[in-house]
């Protein structure tokens, strides 16, 4: 019990430093990553930065605090990806806001929005992204799930549970 109290601030600092490093690396390399390959990039940077955080903290504070920090770091990254990055990169609502904003004082009709941004554009972009990240495979014109545990699969499973509990 004393152990975590003694290392409390250290655990916090390492998790936040890991997260800051994650955002920094993301800002550096994501300008060279194509939008459809973004999921793979998110996971790669998360694992790379997490490894650095885990290794350096294990040496300085010990293995148990490093694991605790890694959990906090993982949750920080998840909050950031879902709450900020995901919102800006893939939110349909934000894209509509940007389309309306681009019209300025002229305004835009719903029909015009649908011409610029519609289900075909929304779904094709997602299908492309999920193929690039290995979530789906395209075989002879048919889309299928790639049976493996992945970022999207875990999030979708959690999402389905929430919908079921709140319906």
């Amino acid at each position, binding site marked *: 019990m004393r152990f975590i109290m003694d290392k*409390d601030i250290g655990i*916090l600092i390492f*998790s936040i430093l890991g997260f800051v490093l994650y955002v920094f690396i993301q800002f550096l390399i994501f300008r060279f990553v194509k939008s459809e390959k973004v999921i793979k990039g998110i996971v790669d940077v998360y694992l790379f930065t997490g490894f650095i955080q885990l290794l350096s903290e294990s040496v300085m504070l010990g293995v148990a605090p490093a694991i605790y920090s890694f959990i906090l770091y993982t949750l920080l990254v998840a909050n950031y990806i879902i709450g900020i990055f995901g919102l800006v990169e893939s939110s*349909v609502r934000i894209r509509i806001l940007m389309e309306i904003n681009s019209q300025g004082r002229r305004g835009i009709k719903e029909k015009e929005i649908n011409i610029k941004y*519609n*289900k075909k554009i929304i779904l094709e972009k997602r299908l492309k992204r999920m193929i690039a990240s290995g979530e789906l495979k395209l075989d002879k014109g048919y*889309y299928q799930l790639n049976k493996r545990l992945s970022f999207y699969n875990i999030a979708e499973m959690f999402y389905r549970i*929430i919908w079921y509990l709140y319906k």
Partner: protein
Amino acid sequence: MIKYLFLPIAIFITSAFVHILVFRILKKFKIISFKSTAVFLIGLVINIFWLKFPLSAVFLYLLLSGIYILFLTGPILGDPSPSFIILSLLRRKKMMDKNEILASFSDRNLVGKRITSLTSAKLIVKKGHKYYVTKRGMKMAAIVNGYRNIFHWEAGG
């Protein structure tokens, strides 16, 4: 360490169950609001003032609650993520071509509903047949533009 790892998780799970109950009760009265997530504040108070947990344990509780609340936007706003719907469809039907997937969605559900929610959030406003961005919407758009510029990316969505 185990205590400070599992107790915040246990308090979070309890808060989530209480929230499900509160949400379902309010839903019967047709009250669906993000304000119901205030339930998680009770858990936070328990963490800080009653159990006097170390900062990292309080932080763990906050981050878990944060993710949970972010996932709740779908059920609360009533518009599930298109990607998750695609995955659910493929899980049920095993394989689908692009036309079948496109036919499972409508512009009304994907775009129209979101325009309505942007209007209720006062980010856009309808005047006549046209939509305009409000001052609040402009601020939001400027933040999004600034963030996207860091990555040199074009329009998202």
